[in-house]
């Protein structure tokens, strides 16, 4: 198959300005005052510093990134927050210019970077379909032709003439995805849209993307923290870390490598400065660790012993209904279970005063089958607000040390490996 995207030595540099209380945009006042200051310096024969007289620091969001994408490929781009995934997509979809290198693309690129971009809340579903189509580069005739299909896919027939501000968030996402998915670009760029929407629709979207790519030979670039979605949809993976490519290959290789990466494989993850730590002004996460049955921090766990997952965090402002918890996923991205620390009866419904906390969850022996698992941690105000959500902070390996009664030395299939109670009785003497 022919190459449809070729990226060579791509780099994107941002200048970070260090000045206390700096606004994200430049105020004319600053330009003028800095200009005057520089002029003053020049007159005094002390020309130094940068153009604006403030300290600037270069930051390479992407550096020397080169790869090729073949037609019909579905590539999953994975990496931590700030690894340069979104910057890469922004360059590919021409929202921002690269600083170095070049990209060559065959065909039209459509990006589905965020749900409902270009939707106007006051306009009806019908009007928004046309508007959004136009923004994504569709022609009116093209939209008209596919209008019914879009409405059908989004399942919003009844609400077509309702302003979208009255839509539920699920309907909103469905409509947004439907428009973009029917765009028929040669290359579809998707960034984290599936984070919202119900599971059923997520499946439908993945199915649609798979369909679009397999049947019509279109190329999909998919960015997600959801390893299940990446694993399911993509054929190839691209792992970015600190602006460079860390690994590139088949999706299962890359995802496995990503999950067993140094940081996550240590059995403990510590956020030393509160700036970068997950959280907000109410709570910040400090440490996540996995301990084996002997309370040793470890990533190698024995199936036949219990182990525990610990979250250490700081609560800055007291909140009722606050809870922390975690999700356990398999390498394939299948959710095994969710645990929340509001299960501790001592704290159930009790307001937690500010302070340093440790939530510890003991996971019993004979629960997880052998294999690699990843931990995603989160905190929320129960039933209302998510405080932080951090994907894949850690991973650990569950091992089968001895032969099991069930399958001997072999791994039994399945995600869980419970030790179940069986009772076998002979209830009759004769053959029936």
């Amino acid at each position: 198959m022919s190459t449809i995207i070729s990226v060579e030595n791509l780099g994107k540099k941002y200048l970070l300005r260090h000045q206390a209380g700096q606004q994200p945009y430049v105020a004319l006042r600053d330009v003028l005052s800095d200009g005057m200051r520089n002029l003053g310096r020049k007159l005094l024969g002390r020309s130094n510093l940068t153009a604006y007289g403030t300290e600037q620091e270069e930051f390479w969001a992407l550096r020397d990134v080169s790869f090729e994408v073949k037609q019909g490929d579905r590539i999953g781009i994975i990496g931590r927050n700030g690894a340069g995934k979104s910057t890469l997509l922004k360059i590919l979809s021409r929202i921002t210019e690269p600083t170095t290198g070049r990209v060559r693309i065959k065909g039209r690129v459509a990006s589905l970077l965020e749900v409902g971009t270009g939707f106007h809340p006051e306009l009806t579903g019908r009007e928004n379909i046309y508007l959004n189509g136009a923004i994504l580069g569709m022609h009116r005739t093209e939209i008209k032709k596919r209008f019914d299909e879009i409405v059908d896919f989004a399942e919003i027939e009844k609400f077509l003439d309702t302003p979208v501000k009255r839509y539920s968030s699920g309907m909103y996402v469905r409509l947004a995805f439907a428009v973009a998915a029917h765009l028929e670009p040669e290359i579809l760029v998707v960034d984290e849209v599936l984070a919202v929407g119900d599971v059923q629709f997520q499946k439908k979207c993945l199915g649609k993307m798979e369909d679009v790519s397999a049947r019509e030979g279109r190329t999909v670039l998919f960015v997600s923290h959801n390893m299940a979605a990446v694993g399911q949809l993509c054929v190839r993976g691209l792992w970015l870390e600190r602006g460079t490519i860390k690994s590139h290959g088949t999706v299962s290789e890359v995802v496995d490598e990503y999950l067993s990466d140094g940081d996550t494989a240590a059995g403990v993850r510590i956020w030393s400065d509160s700036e970068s730590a997950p959280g907000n002004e109410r709570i910040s996460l400090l440490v996540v660790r996995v301990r084996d049955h002997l309370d040793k921090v470890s990533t190698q766990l024995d199936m036949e012993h219990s182990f525990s997952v610990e979250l250490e965090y700081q609560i800055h402002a007291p909140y009722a209904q606050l809870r922390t918890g975690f999700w356990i996923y398999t390498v394939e991205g299948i959710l095994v279970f969710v645990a929340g620390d509001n299960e501790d009866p001592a704290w159930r419904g009790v307001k937690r005063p500010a302070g340093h906390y440790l939530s510890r969850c003991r996971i019993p022996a004979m629960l997880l089958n052998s294999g690699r698992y990843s931990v995603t941690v989160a905190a929320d105000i129960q039933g209302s607000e998510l405080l932080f959500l951090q994907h894949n902070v850690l991973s650990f390996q569950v091992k089968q040390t001895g032969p099991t009664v069930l399958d001997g030395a072999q791994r039994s299939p399945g995600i869980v490996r419970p030790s179940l109670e069986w009772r076998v009785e002979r209830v009759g003497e004769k053959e029936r």
Partner: protein
Amino acid sequence: MNDDLQYDLIIEPGRGIRHYWHDIWCYRELFFFLAWRDILVRYKQTAIGIAWSVLRPFLTMIVFTIVFGKLAKLPSNGVPYPIMVYAAMLPWQFFANSLTECSNSLIDNSNLLTKVYFPRMVVPFSSVIVSMVDFLISCVILVGLMVWYRFIPDMRLLVLPAFFMMAFMASFGAGLWLSALNVQYRDFRYVVPFLVQFGLYISPVGFSSAIVPEEWRQLYFLNPMVGVIDGFRWALLGGAFPVNWPGFALSSALVVLLLLGGVFYFRRMERNFADVV
């Protein structure tokens, strides 16, 4: 690099220009969709809706007629004062609205700028289109005024589109400057309303440019709207308002300069919009 030819699109630092005008053509429908959206949205949840675009110039016209015509007793060269004011109010309102809408257009659409690619010039352009719709609606009032005062324009009316083009170029040119500047320096959020308010008095809207002393007349045409307004009056009201042609030429040259400069500046700033806005 021969194999470049196989590719439809090459993204390189500073490479945007080659496809730019072609892209604008491809996205021509987006102009109208954005304008259509703004018009649809603007008067939703307002009680009298589109009537606002008529009411504003109409009320200003009444105030100006009373203040300048009745109280200050300025000359109107035999034309009913309201008609004289309104003939100038049309291009001025168009210009002022375009300026206001354009300057905020990029920031209002920042969610689009940071998420989707399209030639950014589409955004201020569609703002001018929206103001043009207002302009066309408020033309109805002028027709009404002319009927009321039994005033019949002559053949010069046929030249009006040319003057309208000039107003359009001035609006778009200034709009490009202000929209790009506003992204970079939010100060312009405060500058623009002031500029518009100020401009209403230093442009000959409430009075005729003929009352400006002769020795200052040429200088007065440095305000490009003076040329536009004089042109409108000449085309609509006939011989009572002769155009000062050298002055008009100066205004026209400035309008062209404003537009070209605006396009150039906008193009230069455009590539950073997504990073800055």
